């Protein structure tokens, strides 16, 4: 009835009709009109004068408002009947997010990580492991305290868990659902989400602690630049100069201190929807998080390779806390010069350990 009442107020009505209204037959005529218009509808359809009808129709929304709807803006007189809803009519950025995530982040993340694995494998089979040039002296230098080693391995394990569960969120459905069936997949993916969302913040906190405790050793120096120009000793015969941390290790440190913290920060945004951040914020946080995390995962593979099978004598630094003199001389010559008089034989270390019934952290230089 609303529309009909509205039309009756319009001025283009023929005079006789207006008179009828004034005589108070309003209701009856309206009913008549309604019935008549139903009967005449097909006729009218055939000869609709669109321009004239347009002028008399109930006013529609303007081009400006249509633009607002499409762009996701909401004016002051926008209402949504849903409780607590702050949504616009059309979530305009949703499709953009979908396209960026599914068309770019997902395939290129796979290329980055897959590519890294291929490069590392090729490097290993063609160039091979980096052996020590000189034989070991058997005398050891103290490098990592038990506390630092525990911190490193905790952060590393958390990183691996987060990377695997994160990758499962992004790629798992293409592999495991068809492979294992719905029951196993449901369990896998919900475990991934829970692990990722609860361990993520723990990782974030411990990463900050790790970064702070390593800061002193990772301040960039001039010789680090030279280290990079010589590609860490890959080219040329001699190892370039390096202090406690070499150029490559410092680069990994600063990558974690920048991209790593961005991943953590965006992870926190995604992880705590209770603060009511908008869908748009979540979309950006997700893209930043995924790009950063996939990039870090790719570089982490390189870090893992160099620290384990890639270089002779490196892994024992992080497992036992001690390195051989030869390794120190070749990989960290500037550091070696500082601490060479503190070298100890296996027996001395064993004695030190039994005395202090634990760690020899007191002997860590500087």
């Amino acid at each position, binding site marked *: 009835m609303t529309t009909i009442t509205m039309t009756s107020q319009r001025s283009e009505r023929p005079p006789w009709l207006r008179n009828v209204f004034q005589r108070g037959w309003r209701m009856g005529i309206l009913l008549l009109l309604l019935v008549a218009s139903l009967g005449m509808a097909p006729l009218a359809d055939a000869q609709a004068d669109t321009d004239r009808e347009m002028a008399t129709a109930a006013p529609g929304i303007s*081009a400006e408002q249509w633009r607002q709807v499409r762009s996701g803006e909401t004016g002051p007189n926008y209402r*949504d009947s849903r409780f607590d809803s702050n949504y616009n009519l059309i979530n305009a950025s949703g499709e953009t997010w979908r396209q960026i995530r599914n068309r770019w982040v997902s395939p290129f993340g796979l290329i980055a990580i897959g590519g890294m694995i291929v490069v590392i494998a090729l490097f290993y089979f063609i160039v091979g492991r980096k052996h020590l040039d000189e034989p070991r002296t058997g005398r050891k230098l103290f490098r990592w305290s038990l506390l630092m080693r525990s911190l490193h391995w905790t952060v590393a394990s958390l990183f691996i868990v987060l990377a695997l569960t994160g990758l499962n969120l992004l790629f798992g459905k293409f592999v495991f659902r068809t492979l294992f069936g719905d029951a196993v997949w449901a369990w896998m993916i919900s475990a991934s989400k829970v692990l990722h969302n609860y361990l993520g913040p723990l990782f974030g906190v411990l990463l900050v602690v790790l970064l702070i405790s390593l800061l002193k050793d990772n301040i960039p120096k001039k010789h680090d630049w030279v280290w990079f120009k010589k590609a860490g000793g890959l080219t040329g015969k001699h190892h370039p100069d390096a202090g406690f941390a070499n150029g490559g290790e410092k680069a990994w440190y600063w990558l974690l201190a920048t991209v790593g913290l961005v991943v953590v920060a965006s992870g926190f945004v995604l992880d705590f929807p209770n603060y009511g951040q908008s869908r748009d914020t979540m979309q950006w946080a997700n893209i930043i998080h995924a790009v950063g995390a996939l990039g870090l995962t790719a570089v982490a593979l390189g870090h893992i390779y160099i620290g384990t099978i890639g270089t002779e004598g490196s892994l024992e630094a992080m497992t036992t806390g001690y390195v051989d003199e030869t390794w120190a001389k070749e990989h960290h010559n500037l550091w070696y010069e500082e601490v060479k008089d503190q070298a100890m034989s296996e027996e001395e270390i064993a004695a030190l350990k039994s005395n202090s019934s634990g760690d020899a952290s007191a002997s860590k230089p500087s």
Partner: protein
Amino acid sequence: MAQMKFMCDAERCIECNGCVTACKNANDVEWGIQRRRVVTLNDGEADEMSISVACMHCDDAPCMAVCPTDCFYKTDDGIVLHDKDLCIGCGYCLYACPFGAPQFPKQNAFGERGKMDKCTFCAGGPAESKEEEYQKYGSNRIAEGKLPLCAEMCSTKALLAGDAQDVADIFRQRVVHRGHKDGAWSNNPQASTDNLAYDAARKG
């Protein structure tokens, strides 16, 4: 096979929220969730316009494309449904959905949102028994040969539900009858250029 669609005729919607209430009732929807909402543009102004929105059961559904668990599926009738046993409540479907259809019973720390809930076109969802289906997804009127209750109850027949072809035919008739160049969305520049009424009259 039918391709089920909703369509809300904004020229008719009087913002009574009958559809919202009908849906809540028909599906026993969880507290805090409202599968359908009515949006009003320019409330109180001369050009006020309302439209009822829920899941539009998209052809190339964004929710389906981004779900990490792949828990969505399209029925033979073109209805987009999801499996609550697989859903992990990550919220991705909500980020992607153009219509704000997916909702969550909670929104807690560590991404604890519970299972996503949305309009099912009154077609229920995957479950072992009828009772379980009703409890998880609400009624399955489609299985009983009925259309969604929101559209059935709409007092002005603004909200239409059914096979895309039927819905389009009804709307085309209305457009022709009204004579609007652009159907319900008056002054939408694109629709006026297309001249929906002219097209509809020629086709009809």
